[in-house]
Each structure stands twice: as structure tokens, then as C-alpha cells.
């Protein structure tokens, strides 16, 4: 479970995250929806401890990332915006490396990897060097890498970026799978259809602030519009960034 209260982060003069508060429950998929530059990535980076908030509080399963960054990192599985695979290593070696960094022993890594290869359908390319992988294959490796230590909470930054229809469908299936296992899944996206199809709870972020928070039905009802897209435009107050 993730709780964020009044997070604020500035880079010099620029206020990237102004006032962000939300909750993400276990067994749910929470979507951070917002136009590009709204502060989604910065919010996630604060949660996974690579950035320090200027003010505000946050906890992951009750642990403060600022106090115990390593404990939080052990609980989090993160697929950041930059997938960053090592081209000269095979997909298996990429995932194994992260397992070793988590301090897992060889046998555990091997058995978890076998499962992930099955679930994510990576059998065809798991022992190939990742140079020349398609976006879909890269995302799968990045997900396997993030899940090798079996984290309870999963953060994904724009996971469907650059994926084709089939890969996107597979990704959705996998995330629903994680939800049914009772994990807390948080994903950021600027794609409306994705949250509509997937998320139990939608947190709309615009200009570093929370514009609205609730289920898809609640958001539509609150805005008085008929579709989520119209509701979104109305709630963030402009359609800037939607086409980006």
C-alpha cells in the first residue's frame, strides 16, 4: 500500500510536483493519469527514492522511503520510464543481474525466472542478447527484472509506451494477474483507454496537483460528462498535452 500526502518537489524555479496526495491499495490497480509534464514521473521517482521531496510525507507499506530507502527498495518492483537494458547481455543475464543485486541466491533466481518466462511468454528470446529487441520484448525484460524479487508493490512508469496492440493486451493481462495476486500496482500513463480498461482507481494529475481522484464512474459523474475522455479534459481544465 502506498500513501502520499502533500508531496512537493521543485527543480530550481520549476515546480514539478506542487501538491500531490493519493492512496494506492493492495489488490488494486491505481492509475496516475495526466498530460505530459504533469509530474507523474517525478512523483514516482520520489516514491522509489531516487528523488527527495521538498516537503510532504509518503509511506510504502508504512515505511518512509526517506528514512529507510533500502527497505522500501526491497519491497518495490519498478519499471521506470527508461528501460535501460544491457545490450551485450542476454535477457536472462539482465534479469539475473538484478536478482543478484537484490541478494537472491542462484536457485531462487533460476526458479523465479522460469516462472516469469512462462507468465510473460519470453521463452523465445530469453537467451538472446537484448541488442535489437523490440519495444515489447524490452518491456517484458524490464518487467521480469522488476519482479525477480517478488515485490508486493509494483510501480510502472508509462508501461505501454511504444507497444503494439498485441503487446499492450498481454501487458494488461499481466497487470490484472498481479492485482489478483493481491499486489499493489501503480502505473502512470497519459493514455485514457489504458486507465479505463485497467484501473480500479484513477488519480488525475495536472500541473503538479491532483485534479480528481476516484473510479472511472465517479469521475464521469462528478464532471457531468458522458465519456472518461470528456471528463478528463474538463477535470484538468484544458486539453493541452492530450495529443502528445
Amino acid at each position: 500500500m502506498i500513501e502520499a500526502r502533500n508531496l512537493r518537489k521543485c527543480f530550481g524555479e520549476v515546480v514539478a510536483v506542487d501538491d500531490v496526495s493519493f492512496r494506492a491499495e493492495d489488490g488494486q490497480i491505481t492509475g496516475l493519469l495526466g498530460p505530459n509534464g504533469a509530474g507523474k514521473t517525478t512523483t514516482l521517482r520520489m516514491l522509489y527514492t531516487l528523488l527527495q521531496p521538498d516537503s510532504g510525507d509518503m509511506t510504502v507499506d508504512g515505511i518512509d522511503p526517506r528514512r529507510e530507502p533500502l527497505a522500501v527498495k526491497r519491497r518495490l518492483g519498478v519499471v521506470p520510464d527508461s528501460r535501460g537494458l544491457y545490450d551485450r547481455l542476454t535477457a536472462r543475464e539482465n534479469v539475473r543481474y538484478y536478482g543478484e543485486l537484490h541478494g537472491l541466491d542462484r536457485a531462487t533466481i533460476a526458479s523465479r525466472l522460469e516462472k516469469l518466462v512462462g507468465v510473460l511468454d519470453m521463452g523465445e528470446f530469453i537467451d538472446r542478447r537484448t541488442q535489437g529487441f523490440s519495444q515489447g520484448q524490452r518491456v517484458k525484460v524490464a518487467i521480469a527484472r522488476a519482479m525477480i524479487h517478488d515485490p508486493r508493490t509494483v510501480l510502472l512508469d508509462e508501461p505501454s509506451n511504444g507497444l503494439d496492440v498485441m503487446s499492450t493486451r498481454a501487458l494488461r493481462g499481466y497487470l490484472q494477474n498481479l492485482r489478483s495476486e493481491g499486489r499493489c500496482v501503480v502505473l502512470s500513463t497519459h493514455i485514457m483507454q489504458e486507465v479505463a480498461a485497467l484501473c480500479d482507481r484513477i488519480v488525475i494529475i495536472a500541473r503538479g496537483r491532483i485534479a480528481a481522484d476516484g473510479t472511472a464512474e465517479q469521475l464521469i459523474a462528478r464532471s457531468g460528462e458522458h465519456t472518461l475522455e470528456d471528463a478528463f479534459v474538463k477535470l484538468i481544465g484544458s486539453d493541452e498535452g492530450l495529443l502528445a
Partner: protein
Amino acid sequence: MMPVFKKELLENLRDRRVVINTLLLGPLAAPLIFVLIIAFTVQQAIDRAEAELELVVVGAEHAPNLVRWLEQQGVVVKDPPADPERAIREEEEEVILRIPAKFPEAWAAGRPAVVEVLTDRSRRYAGTSLNRVQSLLHGYSRQIGQLRLQLRGVTPELSQALRVQTLDLSTPESRGGLILAFLPYVVLITVFIGAMHMAIDTTSGERERRSLEPLLINPLPRWQIMGGKLLATTTFALATLGIGLVAFTWALKFLPTAQMDMALNLDWRVAMIAFVLVLPVALLASAVLIILAAFAKSFREAQSYIGLVMFIPMIPSFWILINPSRLETWMTWVPLLSQSILILEMVRGETIEFAWLATSFASTGALALLMAAVAGSLYNRPGLIFGDG
């Protein structure tokens, strides 16, 4: 820290260009070039010294006795070209002897008779021939001078107020040390070259591939991640150094040292000591290069920064070159300079005090650890992770 170390080594050993450039060309090129150049120069010097001396003589008719004497000394006297000066300038001849028309008159009067030796000293190859011609002429001059004194009943020794005897106490080893003077520079630059690629690849390369952010999300203190990279870089630098030293020690066996009248005191024992001596330099070079490369956003940017510091390993050698003084204790405390001087002393065959090696190792090691600590703290700066400053 160990997973990072192992992964960086594995990843870079898979890159064929890295292996060829860093582990083969880098350490092997210098010994190869060195041995070829030395062998060539030595052979040329020997050839010149032993070859017949051909000498163009202009105006031979003015001093037939001198010319005959030269021929008796084994000189092949050649007929003059139309324009002697041009022949020298256009490198047709190395040395030309010109006997002016006034020669017989001065000779008969017992005045110093002028002969001219034409050459171009900026042509280095002319040196040997010039020396031989000059010493022949001096020999003739002295011989005739002594005869003239004897004719007048004066003992020739009176004209010789001094007899200078220079005793050269240099040993074959110390003469060999002259040739190996550049060895410290090669050793130090090899270490820097060995560390360079790895330092860039593990830091700015990681940033360019956008794999640094996911890497740092792993539950590992950041200094340990940097520590693994530093260790891998140092290992590469040491491997390069080891290969280079082995190649050098081995290649020197092919030099005609006997003909050069010198001994090259670089055997396996000296190579081992040199390796241990330069060990902390490998860590120092790796840490400094990593610090520089970590600030760069891309591989190319890092290369341009690092190009600027590659002259650092040259400084001690240049310093020794322009200020060739004796080893003093303070020098053994200065990183890079201490290694350069101590390696020089060893190849000259001098005895090295253990304390000197120890101070060099300790001072360089301390500086290296300090730099390593700086490097270890770098990933606490968000600007270095996301590439926005």
C-alpha cells in the same frame, strides 16, 4: 558490490572492440614500436661506423700527400661534383672535403693550411661520417705537426700541455637506462588507457543507455554500486598494465644489447616490483577517470573530458627530462613522479630502498582512496542520475 563488478567485467569482455583496443593494442603497441625503432637505429649506427668511408675531395691536386694519406687510411676518394654546396643541400653527399688553391702556399710557409669540410649538421645521419672525416684530418694534422717539431729538434710532447683522460664509469645497465628512460611514461599511460574505456562505459555509458536509473532502484547503497564499477575499472587497468609489462620484458630480449654495449635491466623481478609499485596508480587513475566520466552525459562527452587529462601521466617524465636531478626522498612521496623515478632507478640497475617503495605506495594509495571516496559519493547527486545537470 560483487554482482556489479562481475557484470561490468562480463559485459565489457563481450565487446570485441574493447578487448582488442584495451587489452591488446594498448599494452602491446608501445613495446613493439620501441623494439623496432631501437633495433633499427642500432643497426644503422653499426652499418655506418663499419662501412667504407666515401669522401668527395674538391681540389685534390692542391694536396696530393694528404689525399694519398687518406687513401692509405681506407678512405675511398671520389671525384668532385660541379657544385659541391648544391650536392650537400640536395643530399647527394654527406660530407665534402675542399682543399683551397692557397693550400700549397700556406703549407710550404708552415702556416696553418685551411681545408674546408662541407656538411649539413641538421641531417642527423651525417654525424657519423663527419666525425670520421674530422678525426682523420686531426690525426693527419697532428702527425705532420709532430714531424715538423722533430725536424727542428724539439720533442713533440712539449706541444702537448695536457693529456685529458675521461674515465667513463657508466655501467652497461646505466647506459641501458638511458634507452629505457621513457619506460615510466609508457607504464603510466598504459594504466590510464586500460582504465579509460571501462571508466566511461560504466558511468556515462550507463547513463547514455538510460540504465542507470533502474540500476539505482536496487536495494544497494549507492557507494557499493560505484565501488563495483571502480573495482572492475581498476581490474582492467591492472590487466592492461600486466600485459604491457610482460610484453616489454619479453620484447627487450630481442634487442641487440651486446652490440649496443649496454644491458637492459628489465627482467621479471624488476617487472614484478614495477607492477606492485604502479598498483595504487591503477586505482587512482580509475577513480579520477570515473569521476570525470560520471559527469558526462554521453560516451563522446566523456571522451573529450578524458582526453584533457591523458597528459597527466606525461608530466613526471617531462619533468625528469627537463630537470634531470638525482633521486631525493621527497620525490618518493609524489604520486606518479615517485613511480617514474623509482622505475628509472631500477632499470638503471641502482639499488632501491624498500622505504622508497613503501612511501610511494602509501602516498599514492592514500590519494587513490580519497579519489575513490569522492567517486563513491557521486551517485548521491540526482543531477548525475537523470542527466539533467
